[in-house]
């Protein structure tokens, strides 16, 4: 039974300074409840929406980055429904039923392994306020506490066609979206609640369930998997899957039936009379195209062509803007792109704390590491000051201490014994102590490795094994 999935992704335009329709700040996090409000975003009688130019520009950028067409004119609609977090009891959004009025439409985005998904539309809309339940849960609280600080923060909603068949692809697609909006600088995806996703899922051509409230991209794959299993199980028992809205229970990691609010046919959409149709004009697209920062795909190509990275390594770097930025900062300090890229992708990534990464939404959360460290490390290796094994050891140390690699190398005198005399001396004393092994080694090449081990032990690993082995073999022949 084939499953089909489509996504509705909401990203807050945290890159904007003011809300979508009023001058309140977008930066509501950490503020006292309702301190970030004005008559307009609290829905006071007599107030009027004043559309933020920057938000339109950002939404235009996202549309272009997702391969969407951008119309000459856009309009806003009212979506009418009651909910306690909605100050006006309607949401100002965009709508395409009576001609195209949303900022982006008919797009297509390629993601991993040459797969692609069609983008139905990109629309600009306002975020509602936030409800806090006294006692922690919706079910048990006697009243809700409402904070309008978030109300009116600009959101871009990206709606895909139901083009996904594998939950893994959903994850890859979301990673790509994340990377794009991060690269555009329109949304800081690390901020709590800045990206949210709804997913609709159907199995075997059956009814479609819509999963709401998935507040972390990482959980979308899980939610979708759970829902596919649920629907398959139902189908296998000949129970019809209902067309319904389900909630993602973040704590228990299951989807739950949720009480229906208004249905789509009850929203009574109509054009917002207080916002005239916005004429973007022909220059809009060309001017934002010009001002748009480099997108992940272009960046990847540049990493391959300019720095000689492999396609795979470049991909890993750009999949996460934080990583790509880290790389570019490091090579500015010390220009050895391949060496640095390898250190980042293969070694540094193994220290990433997955749990912290999800919580703090930063790759290197909890690690005391910056581009300057990796640049320093690469330089030490490049200049043969330390060998690779030592470098790895140092890395595992400094991610916790934040010390500079060169400093650690000096302090522990980890500098390689590059003095041939000192190495010869060490070999000399091993030969004296291990005479039986020396004799053995003259006939058995494997025994030479034993001698090398002893030399390394004696030099506390500071010897270059290659040089040491060469010298051992030479001495065996001489003796």
């Amino acid at each position, binding site marked *: 039974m084939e499953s089909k999935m489509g996504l509705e992704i909401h990203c807050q335009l945290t890159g904007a300074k003011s809300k979508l329709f009023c*001058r309140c700040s977008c930066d509501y996090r950490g503020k006292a409840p309702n301190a970030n409000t004005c008559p307009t975003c609290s829905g006071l009688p007599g107030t009027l929406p*004043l559309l933020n130019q*920057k938000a339109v520009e950002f939404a235009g950028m996202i549309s272009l980055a997702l391969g969407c067409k951008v119309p000459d004119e856009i309009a806003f609609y009212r979506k009418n429904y009651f909910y306690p977090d909605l100050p006006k009891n309607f949401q100002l959004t965009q709508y395409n039923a009576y001609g195209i009025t949303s900022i982006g439409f008919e797009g297509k985005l390629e993601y991993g392994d040459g797969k692609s998904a069609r983008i139905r539309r990109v629309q600009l809309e306002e975020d509602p306020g936030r409800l*806090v339940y006294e006692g922690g849960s*919706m079910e048990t609280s006697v*009243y809700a506490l409402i904070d309008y600080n978030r109300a009116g923060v600009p959101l871009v909603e990206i709606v895909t066609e139901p083009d996904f068949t594998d939950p893994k692809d959903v994850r890859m697609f979301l990673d790509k979206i994340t990377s794009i909006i991060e690269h555009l600088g329109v949304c800081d995806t690390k901020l709590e609640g800045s990206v949210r996703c709804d997913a609709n899922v159907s199995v075997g051509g059956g009814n479609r369930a819509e999963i709401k409230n998935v507040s972390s991209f990482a959980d979308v794959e899980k939610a979708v998997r759970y829902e596919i299993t649920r629907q398959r199980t139902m189908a296998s028992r000949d129970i019809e899957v209902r067309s319904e809205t389900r909630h993602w229970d973040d704590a228990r990691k299951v989807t739950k039936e949720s009480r229906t609010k208004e249905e789509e046919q009850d929203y009574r959409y109509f054009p917002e009379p207080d916002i005239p149709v916005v*004429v973007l004009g022909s220059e809009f697209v060309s001017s934002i195209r010009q001002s748009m920062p480099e997108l992940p795909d272009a960046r990847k190509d540049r990493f391959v062509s300019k720095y000689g990275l492999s396609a795979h390594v470049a991909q890993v770097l750009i999949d996460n803007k934080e990583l790509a930025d880290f790389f570019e900062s490091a090579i500015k300090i010390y220009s050895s792109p391949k060496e640095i890229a390898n250190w980042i992708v293969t070694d540094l990534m193994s220290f990433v704390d997955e749990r912290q990464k999800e919580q703090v939404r930063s790759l290197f959360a909890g690690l005391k590491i910056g581009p300057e460290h990796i640049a320093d490390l690469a330089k030490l290796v490049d200049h043969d000051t330390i060998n690779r094994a030592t470098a790895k050891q140092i890395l595992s140390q400094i991610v916790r201490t934040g010390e500079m690699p060169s400093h650690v190398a000096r302090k522990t005198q980890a500098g390689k014994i590059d003095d041939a005399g000192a190495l010869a001396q060490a070999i000399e004393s091993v030969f004296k102590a291990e005479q039986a092994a020396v004799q053995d080694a003259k006939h058995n090449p494997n025994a030479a490795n034993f001698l090398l081990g002893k030399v390394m032990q004696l030099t506390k690993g500071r010897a270059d094994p290659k040089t040491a082995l060469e010298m051992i073999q030479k001495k065996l022949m001489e003796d």
Partner: protein
Amino acid sequence: MVTKEEVKHLGWLARIELSDTELKRYTSQIEEIIKYLDKLDTIPLEQFKPIVAKKKFADLRSDEPAGFEGDALGTKYRKDGFVKGPRMV
């Protein structure tokens, strides 16, 4: 024809409680009003595009934040800065 069920549903969508007598009265009054509005449907208007007000992108509000001095919320039902609302379930 406007039915009682329709008016009841519209009342729910508008979150307006309607008593049985209100429902009866409204249904007949609204039926009469809607019949009058039906006149709109008798004229062929396909060639007329609705009037739309327009505004240039360049004339939109520039993205400069400003705080509001004063209390935008009038209710006395508050707790720790939050507004107290009814329970959700």
